């Protein structure tokens, strides 16, 4: 017994010797609770690639100030990883020399992942894709394509199929889809971020329990989107967006799929949109400043607006008709005219048509702008042949004039019966 004890003590000593005799200055232990801390500088790219590939649980990697050039980086199937730089203006990861495309940084099945204080830029595919991971924190990260056109990758910051995501103090620019995109995730916070010159500044898609606040999305095609798409792993909902500043989102839609006039996903976002809610339910939008998005401050559309087969896709994971949407106490303003790119966009043209129709059918409007909130008017009455007013529990409480239009999308191709209606009373919060 005594011998066994001494033996195990010796074994422990041996272990300690092994660890301590590693004199590599880059490796030390127990930094901020991580078992392994590694530190690298510019020029160490090949070592960094190898360190990412052979990373073990509980590792902290510091990339010191400077510019790094990578094909791509990936981390898979580990726990408690932190990747950090020395500041977004100090540590720069450049993927512009990629030959094989794909993501800049790809994170898969990591339980406990933090990345912060750096800029990542100019990959061919998405910049940071985090797939099927838990407890994810993205902080003080700038994710940028220098040219905002269809050569850019889709998503700058892209957690998908994750659980517990926090994205804060980040900046996304130039994405040909959404700058910050949270997809098929359960529980996410996006706060104090900025996004400009993306097709969408931020998009929450098929995601449950998301809170989006304190952000500024500007100069995108559309500021903020909440979408539910059919056929995916889960239905989204329970999304709150408040105290954000969505402004001047009037950029042309340069989504890649849109270049051939097609119409899925973010290609459907009209230039000049502040907020778009598409087929998503249980959403609350309040205390936001939604200014100078010149095609519509808030657009509430059903899946039917973009997919004539939406009804065939209804199941536990998808309803094309939004329910329980609360819109209140936002500050909304719009410019005097539609942004120029709206006239080249298929949904944009509908918005222009709605404004013209309203002003034609009611001269007392004296050529006012399209109302701030555009609802496509497709409700569950369509499915039930019902006539219930407000069957999907929309609730709108906004001060001022020219707040709302039910655009009667169902009849939009039938000019004789098409009648957009600005009467909001049925939708006022009770």
């Amino acid at each position, binding site marked *: 017994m005594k*011998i066994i004890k*001494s*033996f195990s003590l*010796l*074994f422990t000593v*041996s*272990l300690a*010797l*092994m660890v301590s*005799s*590693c004199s*590599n200055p*880059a*490796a030390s232990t127990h930094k901020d609770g991580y078992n*392994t801390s590694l530190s690298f500088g510019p020029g160490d790219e*090949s070592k960094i*690639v*190898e360190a990412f*590939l*052979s990373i*073990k649980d509980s590792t902290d990697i510091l990339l010191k100030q400077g510019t790094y050039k990578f094909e791509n980086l*990936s981390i*898979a*199937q580990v726990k408690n990883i932190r990747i950090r730089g020395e500041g977004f203006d100090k540590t720069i990861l450049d993927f512009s020399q990629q*030959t*094989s*495309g794909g993501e800049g940084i*790809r994170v*898969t*099945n990591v339980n406990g992942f933090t990345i912060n204080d750096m800029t990542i830029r100019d990959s*061919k*595919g998405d910049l940071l894709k985090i*797939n*099927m991971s838990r407890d994810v924190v993205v902080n003080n990260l700038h994710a940028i394509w220098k040219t905002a056109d*269809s050569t850019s*990758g*889709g*998503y700058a910051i892209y957690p*998908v*199929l994750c659980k517990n995501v926090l994205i804060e103090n980040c900046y996304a620019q130039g994405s*040909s*889809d959404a700058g910050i995109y949270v*997809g*098929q995730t359960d529980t996410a916070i996006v706060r104090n971020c900025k996004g400009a010159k993306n097709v969408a500044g931020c998009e929450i898609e098929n995601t449950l329990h998301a809170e989006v606040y304190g952000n500024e999305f500007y100069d995108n095609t559309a500021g903020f989107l909440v979408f539910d798409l*059919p*056929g*995916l*792993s889960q239905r989204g909902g329970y999304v709150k967006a408040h105290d954000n500043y969505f402004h001047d989102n009037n950029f042309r839609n340069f*989504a*890649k*799929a849109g270049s*051939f*006039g*097609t*119409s*899925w*996903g973010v290609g459907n976002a009209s230039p000049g949109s502040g907020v778009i809610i598409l087929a998503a339910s249980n959403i609350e939008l309040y205390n936001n400043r939604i200014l100078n998005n010149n095609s519509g401050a808030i657009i509430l559309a059903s899946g039917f607006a973009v*997919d004539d*087969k939406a009804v065939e*896709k209804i199941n536990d994971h998808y309803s094309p008709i939004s329910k329980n949407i609360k819109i209140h106490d936002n500050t909304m303003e719009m410019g005097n005219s539609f942004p120029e790119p709206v006239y080249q966009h298929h949904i944009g043209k509908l918005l222009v048509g709605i404004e013209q129709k309203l002003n034609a059918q009611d001269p007392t409007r004296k050529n006012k702008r399209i109302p701030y909130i555009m609802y496509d008017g497709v409700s569950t009455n369509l499915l039930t042949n019902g006539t219930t007013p407000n069957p999907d529990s929309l609730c709108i409480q906004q001060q001022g004039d020219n707040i709302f239009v039910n655009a009667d999308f169902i009849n939009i191709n039938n000019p004789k019966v098409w009648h957009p209606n600005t009467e909001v009373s049925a939708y006022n919060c009770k």
Partner: protein
Amino acid sequence: MKNYILFGGSIFLLMVAGMLTIEGCGNNQHQEKAAVDGSYQFKEKLSEYGFFKNNLKDLDPQPGVFHYELATPLFTDYAVKDRYIVLPNGKQMNFVAEGVQDFPDSTILIKNFAYTNTDHKKIMIETRLLVKDPFDKKWKVMDYLWNAEQTDAVKHIIGARLPITLLDDDGNKITTTYQVPNTNDCKRCHINNDIFTPIGPKARNLNVTVAGHEENQLSEMARLGMIAGLPDISTVPVLPKWNDAKHFTLDQRARAYLDVNCAHCHTHGGDAYNTGLFLEYQQKDPPHIGIMKEPVSAGGGAGGLNYDIIPGDAAHSILAYRMNGAEPGTAMPELARTVIHKQGVQLITEWINKMQKQKK
């Protein structure tokens, strides 16, 4: 006496520790932990395993190294593939009707990749090993890159791009940059629901009579004592051979091709789970197979097209479009293919074109 043992033992431990330390502080500072915790350590060179007799590149297997084939294999740039199962002495795998066979701990699966050069010579590129680690019961992966002399292959984790000129199945010359995967690339296809797993050795894909053999491959494995619990072979599911139009219908062959080439990612829990496009052989739901399904995050990869499959119209179906491209960002599969598999594209194009058109 007891003290002597203790002393000797401790010297031994210190020596082991010292050796591990040296290794651990070499080119890879993470190894010391792996060595200490008892998990599987891959050897430096392929030759060290002793899988093959004489000239390594002849891949002439030693007893206990079983060469196997799949009914429908993954396409990898017209690569010539050799596959082997190495079971630990006296151990068997347990038959599993659906999915990958239940292999015993310490099983090694070997897959060698070579190409046919313009002199019609077989040139070795890489050898991939999957090991079922007895330490934690998990599969582990390592790649070995063949040297220029073609005498051995050396452990290689960071991937590589190799310019090669190969002959395809019809003898056409193709120049490309072959992509050797890094170890995380391996995981992209081999992880399902966070579990690393082999892909090929499923009962249905092993259920084939290999050319030149009399006996069904699974029956042969059972006869050799490699597999336990194999039921009557006529009851084992069959994966159609993608290029055998004599025995299988167009639909069967196309679905088998998609299963093997796509469904490791395009499945519940796979790397492309987020897309909602699921291409397993057993998948029945038309939108999940891609029929009139809109893309989710394909971006420019969709080529401006609207649906994965439009029945009767392969020319406007994203599935056929992406198989028929080699550009990164467009090409599917994203990994393991840098040239177009013309015969595969032809199969899928014909399959889509012969699908019954839907009413608009």
